[in-house]
């Protein structure tokens, strides 16, 4: 399925009447089976955009469309959260089943489907654990399994690995790519790490500082399947440099404003 974000703006109004313009006139598309990374400085509205696509927020202007057939029983979107957002009172198994419960699947079907995804994400043997008994990397596997379980037409990932340490992060990126090779789910992936964006995505959409708007879309000319060795490839470096030059001035300004 294809996602089309058309001239979307979002302004938050807080209780005291002050308003924050998070996104301004953003248009972008994610083609079917495409892996698009959304990159931008902190606070530029990346999470806001994902929430809009997931239907958790309504845009202030513009619209978001899904194009293509959505077989009945298949979810349009599913989200993987930076802070994992697992239900602490559910075991791994029950967490993975959550979306399936809401979709109304019978218990047996739920259990079977969850087992598949637990297998796929390398969680076998941990079904009965509670989230607090898992390491960070394990927890995010649960988050991914829970999202993939509902077989979403579009998978939304909001900095899914940024809470993990460097080693685990690397490992999880590899695994995500492997899973993607198998499922070919359309993915919109938020990050503020340039390396990560280039390594994972087919295209990188770069957003400006708040209010976020699209600075440029950078295609990544790297073959698939990707491998760690490609981190030094000329195509990698070209894309990364291009993106770096785009956000350098933005980042500098941000730093200056933040102060010590």
């Amino acid at each position, binding site marked *: 399925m294809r996602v089309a974000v058309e001239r979307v703006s979002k302004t938050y109004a807080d209780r005291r009447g002050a308003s924050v313009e998070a996104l301004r006139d953003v248009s972008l598309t994610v083609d079917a089976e495409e892996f698009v990374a959304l990159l931008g400085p902190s606070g530029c509205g990346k999470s806001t955009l994902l929430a809009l696509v997931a239907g958790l927020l309504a845009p202030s202007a513009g619209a978001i469309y*899904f194009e293509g057939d959505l077989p009945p029983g298949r979810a*349009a979107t599913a989200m993987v959260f930076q802070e994992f957002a697992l239900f602490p009172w559910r075991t791994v198994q029950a967490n993975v089943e959550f979306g399936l419960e809401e979709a109304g699947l019978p218990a047996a079907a739920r259990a079977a489907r969850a087992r598949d995804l637990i297998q796929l994400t390398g969680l076998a043997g941990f079904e009965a654990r509670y989230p607090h008994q898992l390491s960070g990397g394990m927890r995010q596997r649960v988050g991914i399994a829970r999202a993939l379980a509902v077989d979403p037409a579009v998978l939304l990932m909001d900095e899914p690995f940024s809470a993990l340490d460097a080693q685990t992060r690397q490992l999880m990126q590899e695994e995500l790519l492997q899973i993607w090779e198998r499922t070919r789910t359309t993915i919109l992936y938020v990050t503020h790490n340039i390396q990560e964006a280039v390594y994972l995505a087919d295209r990188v959409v770069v957003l400006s500082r708040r209010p976020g708007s699209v600075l440029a879309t950078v295609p990544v000319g790297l073959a698939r399947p990707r491998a760690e060795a490609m981190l030094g490839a000329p195509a990698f470096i070209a894309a990364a440099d291009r993106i770096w030059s785009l956000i350098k001035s933005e980042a500098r300004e941000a730093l200056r404003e933040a102060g010590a």
Partner: protein
Amino acid sequence: MSARLSAPDRTHALERRAHPVVRVLALRGVVVLWELVTRTGWVPALFLPSPSGVVEMLASGELLVHVATSLRRLLLGFGLGALLGVSVGLAVGFFSLAEAVGTPLIAATFPIPKIALLPLLILWVGIGEASKVAVITLGVFFPMAINTYTGVRNADPLLIRAAVSFGAGRFSLIRKVMLPSALPMIFAGLKLGAGTALLLLVAAEMIAANAGIGFLVLHAQNLMETTKLMVGIVLLSFLGIVSHWLLVRLERLAIPWKA
């Protein structure tokens, strides 16, 4: 080209409206309804006195002497209980010997509903004011001691080590680290204790007194003077609200670093 769907709108499940008008009207609506129900005589005044009747009796001030009596008992008992509770809590929290002696004793006596001690206290300190004040003191002592103890024990060990690294001795530690660390818990205890104190005051005055709001309420019931009964209840609610408000103000003053 294939189907074009709008994104699903899930915002309604997250939405929370403020309903400012309902919020303001709710309490007033109940009072108005209450007045109507009693005015029309649909519910006899014996079972439910009218709000206007209650306000009238309140305004007449005839019950002020009872309020003064109750207030004196309350302040004395609460003050004593808080003072003792905080002192014991600090000692038990800080000195390991005091902890070894204190915690089992407190754990064994804390669960007694304090009002049950009133008869014993009457035997010990006499039937006069002392027994009522003592019941309130006991009722306030326990939450205060336990909260202070918890506050002290949960003092950040890093801050303790920092203070010691700058040469702080035991009493410096208590005064400059333990006590301020425990202040939020102490105030939580005071708020809890205020409710308990009021409850114990009323119960003690109902059981063994001939003045005070608790006495007033029970006496009014014996005489089926429902309006007076309701006035007593309103006065108590008022006392509760005022004491809580005072404690919240005091807390803000005492803990400026948690603004």
